[in-house]
């Protein structure tokens, strides 16, 4: 089997897709603080993980999305000054909520998916605040500004369709409704 055959086999069976998503997500989580700090946008909740999670849910890769959510949450816990499990719990719980309500959502529509990404971010901030208040953790609740959350959610909602397009290309999907 030649190199071309290997590439065709990998592309047809989408063998690149999930390892690529895991690698990009992992790299993003590790470097996220650096990216936001060096570009002076620390106030913005620039989180690409929800975009990948919503995309995986949209293409009905629920199991893989749940695994990705949990492990990226764990990685974020490690590279943040919070208790281990905080973001793993948050991402998993939000994804469970999305899974439970997906029959009401038309995730093939890019606008619905982008809106879901924005809602995901808002839900994440709410969840973290609630968890830190309810559980007897030693940590204080970070000050969360409503306007910051809304602006972050809006910006991520705008960025999401662009990333969906690239993910569609990698996945080989052409029938998404890019309205």
């Amino acid at each position, binding site marked *: 089997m030649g190199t071309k055959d290997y590439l065709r086999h990998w592309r047809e069976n989408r063998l690149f897709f999930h390892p690529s998503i895991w690698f990009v997500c992992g790299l993003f989580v590790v470097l996220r603080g650096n990216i936001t700090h060096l570009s002076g946008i620390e106030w913005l909740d620039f989180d690409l993980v929800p975009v990948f999670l919503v995309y995986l849910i949209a293409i009905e890769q629920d199991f893989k999305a749940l*695994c990705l959510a949990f492990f990226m949450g764990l990685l974020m816990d490690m590279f943040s000054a*919070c*208790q*281990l499990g905080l973001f793993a719990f948050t991402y998993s*719980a939000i994804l469970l909520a999305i899974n439970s309500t997906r029959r009401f959502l038309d995730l093939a529509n890019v606008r619905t998916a982008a809106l879901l990404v924005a809602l995901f971010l808002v839900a994440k901030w709410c969840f973290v605040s609630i968890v830190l208040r309810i559980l007897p953790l030693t940590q204080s609740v970070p000050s969360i500004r409503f306007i910051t959350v809304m602006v972050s959610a809006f910006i991520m909602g705008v960025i999401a369709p662009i990333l969906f397009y690239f993910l569609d290309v990698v996945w080989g999907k052409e029938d998404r409704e890019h309205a």
Partner: protein
Amino acid sequence: MTAFFERKPKWISYVFIFIALILLSLSIGRGAEWNPAEKVVAQIAAPFQRFFVGTIRTVRDIWGKYFFLVETHQENVRLRRKLDLLRLENSRYQELLLANRRLQKLLNFQENTDELLLPARVIGWDSSGLFKSITIDKGEHDGVTVSMPVVNAEGVVGRIISVSPGYAQVLLVTDRNSSVDGLVQRSRGRGILKGRGSSECLFEYVIKTCDIKDQDTIVTSGMGGVFPKGLYLGTVAQIEDSPNKLFKDVRVVPAVDFSKLEEVLVVSRSGVVSLPNPER
């Protein structure tokens, strides 16, 4: 097993949520200290941060040094370093002067001189965006341990909260979970500097009779056993003395400019920190 979860993905959600809750429960009272598994992940992932930051700094340096005002930049860097050293020296001298004036001749200043300072580079910033922490390129192998203070020439940066063999995580004084016992340098009034998660801190538990003014300097008190005495914490920016409150509300601008933080010094009072390795 995988096929079962793929058919019924909600189950894996419950499993993950359960595991996450167990992890959260186990970490209650332990702080954010890294466990052995986390140390392994940090060792693997931190080089990516180091590479990323290194690349950005190299590109910035090339631009700053070779394409843009070569001599002015070098002169500026040299003068800034000198100014930083003079500031640190000045802080120490003022502390010594005040101590002498109070006739505390028997005070043992040995502790101020036997501190070992380990230089470290900042290679990462907090991934969540909710908390204020940094990752530095020195760890257990360099003698760094949890709770060691971290400073730079401007003042107190924070303290070590997690350590892996080659890297360590520092909780910044601006994080809401940070508390440092402080003194008003001029009047010796006491308080606790607490982070607010923003660019400002609060100097809490300042009693009504405390003599404190705008632009007063806040320094570490040396109480609590973490930070040595006399390090700059910040400058008083605003004081509110409400009659309905027990204490004064004092806002403090941290001494350190965290937006430009690149190098820090890990302070070891026990002298276990190893000498910096010039190859790293």
